[in-house]
């Protein structure tokens, strides 16, 4: 959006209209009221001192019998002018003080900054009161005191903004070229800090108005016969029982005028910052599900010993125009002791699948599945307390970033122990003992000492092992590890993977291992699911990964498995192009734009996931033949598909 369009956009918003209207009203009153109403405001109505409101005097009269309403209008100019003066002088003083550290260099700068920090700690009104003793009572003294009290905060704003710029590259370059400090200040620094300063100044006018009115109210500001709103308030307050309007009218005008400038500052921020308030469309629960088992697929009906069974999982997220589904129709079955890998590029929906499997999709996302069973128990039919206990004891999560997934304010041992306290009702001491025991189980040395430490005292690999230990506090049937090694050093990665494997062997816990790195999965898992654009596109045993992969995407992933020389931090460099965003999926196969075998059928119709006949399933119109029989590389699509389709068809029969 261009600047002027943005301005118009914001000015036509309710906030813009109200603010502009109020500003205009204030301005017009300040300009017109004194010449038009000045005389009337000083007119003394004989015989009606401090009268309440009447038709003639809507806000009554003051102690000398003058009309409060007229005086409130006339006082607008004085009140605004004083506030503007305070900010103007304060800003100039603040700019000068704030620029000192830049012009004078480091040492003098540090002293100034320390002084500023000390000054800013004191509320402005207090400073102004003490200064008022030096500058004397009256409008001039009040403005001076108040602007000096305001200066430190401006100075600090100038300084912090300016020092950011002063350290910027182009300024250092200018300095190297011998450009004088003064020129740097005027040419580079001031133009760049003017935007935040203007915004701040605008809202500060409101604050100045409130403060200077307060000074006048206390008797330091405008002296009779002049008057501003603060003065009127102090005149009206003693008579609040006989004519409350005389005190309330200036109160209300001060608040409204102050608010106007604060709103104006807000508006300016929006215009300059270009905020645009988009509205997201929220997903709503589609009642597409008939019953828990109604849509159960025909493949293996017996799931007695599965630790996880998830059928028809769909995750929906709010989008700009309509909700979209980053995960669609994903089914997962995991048996005890099995390590299943889930691979895909970022944005493929693999992490959301993992989160949904653990029922951790949070607002505004929405996860729905036809079947979601843990250890054979359908979660959606359970009471929430039983479900939480089941998940808390039989499901463990290990997250990607061990730096952020442990609570920095709690001792590691505490974070482990609370699992056993919550779900198994263990006492504090027993739970702690078990925490120490589990820490030693994941090979953390001197676990008693380590348990008493905070996560920041742990190394990355140690934190990840502590996360795993946290999952072992109960007897997990399934460990969901979402990119558990991505944030770790290569040497530590191996350790963590070995640990997961060892735990799986010893405790018969299944592991769902999510990774963008097919090499990690290939080394660790026994079965692998490949996700692309929110769907599972292939499932196969790891043993067949190199030879039997039928989906061109899987093939490309396998081809990208690095040997020792490849940089693993650059995943899938071998596949040109990017995966589509799941909010804008093409009609046909989502991989088609990147696929060397794509034809018209691929572009128009989406392939379903079907049995591949090689111990897995594949969603591709032209599945590749097992290696050796399949043409290597990007051969002409016309010859391959026919035979490949036949293989798929045979499998289905």
């Amino acid at each position, binding site marked *: 959006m261009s600047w002027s369009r943005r301005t118009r956009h914001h000015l036509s918003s309710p906030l813009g209209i109200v603010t502009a209207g109020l500003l205009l009203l204030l301005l017009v009153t300040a300009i017109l009221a004194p010449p038009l109403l000045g005389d009337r405001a000083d007119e003394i109505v004989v015989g009606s001192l401090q009268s309440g409101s009447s038709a003639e005097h809507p806000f009554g009269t003051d102690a000398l019998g003058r009309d409060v309403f007229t005086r409130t209008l006339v006082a607008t100019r004085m009140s605004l002018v004083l506030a503007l003066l305070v900010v103007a002088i304060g800003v100039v003083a603040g700019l000068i003080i704030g620029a000192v550290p830049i012009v004078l260099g480091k040492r003098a700068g540090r002293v100034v900054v320390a002084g500023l920090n000390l000054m800013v700690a004191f509320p402005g009104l207090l400073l102004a009161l003490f200064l*008022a003793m030096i500058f004397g009572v009256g409008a001039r003294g009040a403005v001076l005191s108040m602007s000096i009290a305001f200066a430190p905060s401006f100075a600090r704003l100038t300084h912090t903004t300016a020092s950011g710029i002063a350290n910027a590259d182009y300024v250092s370059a200018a300095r190297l070229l011998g450009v004088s400090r003064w020129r740097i200040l005027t040419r580079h620094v001031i133009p760049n800090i003017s935007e935040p300063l203007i915004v701040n100044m605008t809202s500060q006018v409101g604050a100045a108005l409130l403060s200077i009115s307060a000074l006048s109210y206390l008797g330091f500001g405008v002296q009779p016969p002049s008057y501003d709103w603060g003065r009127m308030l102090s005149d009206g307050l003693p008579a609040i029982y006989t004519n409350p309007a005389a005190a309330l009218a200036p109160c209300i005008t001060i608040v409204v005028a102050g608010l106007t400038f604060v709103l104006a500052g807000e508006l300016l921020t929006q215009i300059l910052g270009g905020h645009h308030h988009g509205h997201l469309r929220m997903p709503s629960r589609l009642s597409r599900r008939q019953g828990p088992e109604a849509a159960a697929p025909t493949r293996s009906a017996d799931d007695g010993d599965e630790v996880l069974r998830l059928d028809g999982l769909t995750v929906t997220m709010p989008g700009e125009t309509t909700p979209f589904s980053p995960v669609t129709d994903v089914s997962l079955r995991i048996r005890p002791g099995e390590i299943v890998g889930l691979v895909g590029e970022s944005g493929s929906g693999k992490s959301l699948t993992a989160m949904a499997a653990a029922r951790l999709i949070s607002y505004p996302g929405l996860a729905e599945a036809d079947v979601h069973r843990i250890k054979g128990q359908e979660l959606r039919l359970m009471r929430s307390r039983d479900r939480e206990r089941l998940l808390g004891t039989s499901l463990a999560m290990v997250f990607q970033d061990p730096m952020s997934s442990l609570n920095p304010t709690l001792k590691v041992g505490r974070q482990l122990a609370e699992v056993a306290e919550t779900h198994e009702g263990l006492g504090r001491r027993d739970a702690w003992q078990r925490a120490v025991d589990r820490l030693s189980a994941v090979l953390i040395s001197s676990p008693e000492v380590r348990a008493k430490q905070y996560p920041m005292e742990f190394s990355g690999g140690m934190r990840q092992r502590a996360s795993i230990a946290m999952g072992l506090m109960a007897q997990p049937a399934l460990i969901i590890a979402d990119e558990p090694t991505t944030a770790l050093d290569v040497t530590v990665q191996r350790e963590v993977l070995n640990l997961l494997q060892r735990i799986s062997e010893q405790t018969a816990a299944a592991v769902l291992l999510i990774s963008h790195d097919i090499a990690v999965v290939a080394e660790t898992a026994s079965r692998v699911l490949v996700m692309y654009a929110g769907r599972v596109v292939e499932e196969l045993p790891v043993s067949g990964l190199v030879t039997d992969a039928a989906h061109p995407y899987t093939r490309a992933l396998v081809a990208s498995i690095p040997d020792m020389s490849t940089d693993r931090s650059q995943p899938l460099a071998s596949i040109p192009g990017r995966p589509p965003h799941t909010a804008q999926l093409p009609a046909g196969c989502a991989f088609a734009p990147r696929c060397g075998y794509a034809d018209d059928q691929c572009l128009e119709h989406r392939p379903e996931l079907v049995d591949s006949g090689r111990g897995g399933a594949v969603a591709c119109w032209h599945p590749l033949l097992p290696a050796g029989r399949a043409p290597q590389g990007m051969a002409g699509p016309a010859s391959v598909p026919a035979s490949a389709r036949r293989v798929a068809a045979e499998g289905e029969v």
Partner: protein
Amino acid sequence: MRSSFRARHPWLVFLTRRLGRFVVSMAVVVTAAFAMVHALPGDPVRAALGLRASPETIRATREQLGLDDPLWLQYVDYVRGLLHLDLGISLDSQTPVREVMAQLVPATVKLGLAAFVVCIVIAIPVGLLIGIATRDGRGRTVHLGFGGLTGLALSVPDYLLSVGLVFVFSVSLGALPVAGMTGAASFVLPVIALVVGPGAYLARIVRAETQGVLSEDYIRTARAKRLPARVVYLRHALPNTLTPTLTVCGMILASMLAGTVLVESVFAWPGIGAELVDSVLVKDYPMVQAVALFFGAGILLINLVVDVAIAAFDPRSTIKES
């Protein structure tokens, strides 16, 4: 050597450095209070006593204030007096400033503390609850309503709110005393006036912090552990909002001290804030100096306590290293 000492005794180093800063700041405040009298244009005594005061009175007062001594001697005498808690004699009432202060300080401290406690007891739970209700972008209506209400509360300054409160509760309803410190009921209106603005600010900060913390990875971990909501919020989220909350609490307490000046004036509260206004108006220098020291020391002390509390209670805090 030095770095190892620092590593072994982070607390000792931190406390020494922090106390050192407090002492230096305090010295600056004391010097500023002293300099204030000498920064006045003209003869401060004549300014205070007025043109009609006799030359003898002026001379006697100058002597009493020690204004004829050389400046350095005056400064030394002043600091020595402070160390003996001798704050001089009030020009206005001709009684020792210390006695006046002893009468006024308790009233202000009671008011300020009452307001601070009420502020914390209300604003922190409210901020926490709204933060929970608006986590992950939930509860747009609640968020908007809360923003509007606190915005309104923030834009009405304490002294104007005081006037409004007096009008509604004292003038219109006659329910509460309008002025003076006359028992529990007389605290209600001044405390409300002092609490509304800072309370709204604190609640906003706590809400924003809570919302931020609730989207952290470690909260997801806590939820993955299936801890009860109460434990997730109180044990895992709340302590992580501690540092900003404590910082804001310190700022609020300082601003409440300043707020007492205006609020005490509206409610004719027999405290130090209202006294400051009168003393400045009649140029009662010793009194003003004493009040300046009181506020200065109070604010510096609050900042000190906040920093130490952050260092003590937040294990992540890097304040000790800075």
